[in-house]
């Protein structure tokens, strides 16, 4: 290739799409698994799974990740066989498919991290190839009639047949695209979306129209639809005469075996068309962050405007009209901010999706029978919060299944239902927090056992939680097996309390069950900061506020020390930097914590267009933190923008150097 492709952006797109597709694949597999338990088959889910894997294979091909292609291909072959046999999958095939999807997922993550991707596990590939896809070979499904029989796969025909038996009419609809229709906003994409909303599209077949002389005269689409909607409604969607829309007569009782070969399920090009009609857009979180940064910059400039206005007013200028405009602007900014926040919200139900899979696999390996119950209605959460929260929820749910829920026989012996329940419920609190309750009806946590093991007195659940969340309060030995819980509780607490600034509580009763209650903010301000030391105290400043960091040499001009601390705080030195003399403010003196430490570094900010340097002791690092407001009147002070936890469990102040620079301005004035 002659041109350089921005591979990084390309890979990012691949990862986003692939993760989405993997989620779909897992959902399909779960659906199939549930159906098997109920003794049914899910031909549609098998077909969806097939298409999903085919798309993954294609995407992996575009970025050249062979192992993913290989895995997806093997699975695709397995599913094609299953589809041909009527769309039933065997339990063993589901298990193998889950493993393969997981293996693909692991490789996608490695791609995302830019790390080398290992080859597809040969044993797994062998296993997939050796798996007998279907439990039974279904007799060739009945004929539907018309031309459809030749154009549908066995499973598609099976589905049409089953649905018609259930009383859902099947329709052949003909949509003819035209310029006139397109001008009125009716295209194949809108027809698809419209039909999908009121029925199930089995197949869309594009056909060439011929005119009287047999020449090609445009295109039409034949659509096989299962729908209970009235003919008039369908006609409206495809913009056709209602009289021409009639259900096809499917011979219901027949089960005659058809000897003719069934067409292969081909990965359909239509799958791509159907995506056009979707009303959602995937956006990388970075771009939203960028939007928020811009908004923050706007809010700052608005404040500056406000200040100017106040200054004009003080000089006797009539600013009433202008003030009306700025007030309006303030409201608009607030609305804009709210709108941006809403964009960042994701549905909790969606966030919790992977947990169903987790419960299933942990229950399997630990020989438990567990049901996951979700009661989250339509609660929403900031994506950034959700991403941080998920690992904590995974720990809690895994522990519940692995340790808390008893083996089925024990449960029955104890008078409990055989199948254990893990329940996740959530409520939005007035305090802009989401309360998540993860409960199980398992054995409960034995406080005395934990006390013995930790050699600590435990009087209440709060203390119990503290002991469980002690890093290194280890597990996996006999004692914890009976005490019930403990794996990774330090991680859960760190996420809930330190990373998200939330709360964690525990309620447990022996033999009855355990409930963990997490309170997390609906949204958090995550900021990338530099951490540094000044007069032996740690502080952080947003990276975005800093123009430059440099080491201080001897080339500075210090004004003489002033007699009082107050006067010292206003002292401004000069430092030589790239041919300019920068004002250098001692941060220690400015904050009145000056102990005479010699500053070795300087942070440069742009303040009203001018560069100002702040002298500090030393840089510590750079990281992403959650900033929490410091708004109690006792601690509200100039230059303090909030506080954060750098991981030591103690608050570290977030400084607003702009505001501290303001003081310098006043000195000159």
């Amino acid at each position, binding site marked *: 290739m002659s041109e350089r492709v921005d591979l990084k952006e390309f890979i990012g797109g691949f990862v986003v799409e692939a993760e989405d597709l993997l989620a779909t694949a897992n959902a399909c597999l779960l659906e199939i698994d549930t159906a098997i338990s109920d003794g049914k088959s899910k031909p549609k889910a098998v077909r969806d799974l097939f298409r999903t894997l085919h798309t993954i294979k294609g995407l992996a091909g575009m970025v050249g990740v062979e192992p993913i292609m290989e895995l997806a291909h093997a699975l695709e072959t397995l599913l094609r066989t299953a589809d041909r046999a009527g769309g039933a999958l065997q339990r063993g095939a589901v298990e193998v498919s889950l493993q393969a999807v997981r293996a693909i997922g692991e490789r996608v993550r490695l791609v995302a991290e830019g790390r080398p991707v290992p080859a597809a596990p040969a044993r797994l590939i062998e296993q997939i190839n050796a798996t007998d896809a279907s439990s039974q070979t279904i007799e060739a499904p009945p004929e539907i009639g018309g031309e459809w029989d030749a154009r549908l796969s066995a499973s598609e025909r099976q589905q049409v047949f089953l649905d018609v038996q259930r009383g859902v009419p099947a329709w052949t609809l003909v949509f003819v695209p035209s310029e006139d229709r397109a001008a009125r906003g009716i295209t194949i994409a809108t027809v698809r979306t419209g039909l999908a909303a009121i029925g199930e599209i089995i197949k869309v077949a594009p056909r060439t129209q011929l005119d009287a002389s047999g020449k090609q005269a445009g295109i039409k689409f034949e659509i096989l639809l299962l729908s209970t909607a009235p003919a008039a409604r369908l006609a409206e969607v495809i913009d056709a005469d209602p009289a021409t829309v009639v259900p096809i007569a499917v011979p219901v009782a027949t089960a005659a075996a058809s000897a003719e070969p069934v067409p292969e399920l081909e990965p359909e090009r239509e799958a791509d068309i159907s995506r056009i009609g979707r009303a959602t857009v995937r956006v990388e979180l970075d771009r939203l962050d960028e939007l928020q940064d811009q908004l923050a910059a706007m809010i700052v400039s608005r404040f500056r405007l406000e200040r100017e206005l106040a200054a004009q007013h003080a000089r006797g200028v009539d600013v009433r009209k202008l003030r009306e405009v700025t007030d309006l602007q303030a409201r608009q900014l607030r609305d804009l901010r709210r709108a941006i926040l809403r964009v960042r919200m994701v549905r909790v139900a969606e966030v919790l999706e992977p947990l169903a899979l987790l419960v299933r696999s942990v229950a399997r390996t630990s020989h438990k029978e567990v049901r996951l119950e979700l009661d989250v209605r339509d609660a929403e959460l900031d994506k950034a919060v959700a991403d941080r929260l998920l690992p904590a929820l995974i720990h809690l749910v895994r522990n519940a299944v692995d340790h808390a829920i008893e083996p089925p026989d024990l449960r029955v012996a104890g008078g409990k239902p055989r199948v254990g329940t893990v329940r996740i419920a959530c409520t939005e609190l007035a305090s802009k927090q989401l309360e998540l309750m993860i409960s199980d009806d398992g054995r409960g946590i034995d406080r005395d056992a934990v006390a013995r093991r930790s050699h600590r007195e435990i009087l209440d659940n709060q203390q119990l939680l503290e002991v469980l969340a002690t890093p290194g309060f280890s597990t996996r030995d006999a004692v914890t097996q009976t005490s019930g819980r403990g794996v990774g509780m330090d991680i859960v607490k760190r996420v809930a309390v330190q990373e998200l600034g939330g709360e964690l509580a525990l309620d447990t009763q022996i033999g009855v069950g355990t409930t963990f209650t997490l309170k997390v903010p609906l949204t958090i301000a995550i900021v990338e900061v530099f951490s540094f030391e000044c007069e032996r105290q740690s502080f952080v400043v947003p990276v975005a506020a800093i123009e430059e960091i440099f080491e201080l040499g001897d080339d500075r001009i210090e004004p003489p020390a002033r007699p009082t601390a107050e006067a010292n705080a206003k002292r401004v030195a000069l430092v030589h930097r790239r041919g300019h003399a920068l004002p250098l403010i001692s941060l220690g003196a400015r904050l009145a914590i000056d102990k005479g430490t010699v500053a070795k570094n300087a942070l440069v900010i742009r303040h009203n267009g001018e560069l100002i340097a702040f002298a500090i002791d030393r840089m510590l690092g750079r990281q992403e933190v959650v900033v929490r407001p410091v708004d109690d009147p006792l601690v509200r002070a100039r*230059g303090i923008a909030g506080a954060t936890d750098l991981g030591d469990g103690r608050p570290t102040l977030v400084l607003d150097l702009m505001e501290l620079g303001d003081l310098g301005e006043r000195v000159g004035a």
Partner: protein
Amino acid sequence: MSLHVTFRVGNATYAVPAAQVLHLESYDTATHVPGAPAYVAGLVQVRGRLVPVVDLRVRFGLPAIEHSLDRRVVVVQNGTRVAGLLVDSAREVVQIDEAAYQKPPDIIEEQASGFVNGVATAAKRLFLLVDVPRIIGEELSHGE
């Protein structure tokens, strides 16, 4: 009768209604907040919450003491605000009859007197009831 948490600062024993107390925490150090009043020891993090801590020794005009393991932070709630009171020690919970409260005589703890709104005897001991809103500077929040 109602439950009170009692604590010591200097030579006197103080009490605060247990209903106002969220928890007792041991005290190691607080994050100094430059620019905050001198009686503010700083910020601590209690169960995920940022809590400003008032050093009652400084607030009551008493000399500072050496670091001691007995020191506690009494975390109190006042309306929507939550603050910590740094005390020399806090061990006991006692039943005090509110009806037995008297106006504090002028002589006691003259420095602290502004922050005490009652005196009561229980179990033959004298307790000074602290005025939480004044201590945590409720007037600061009205100053805007």
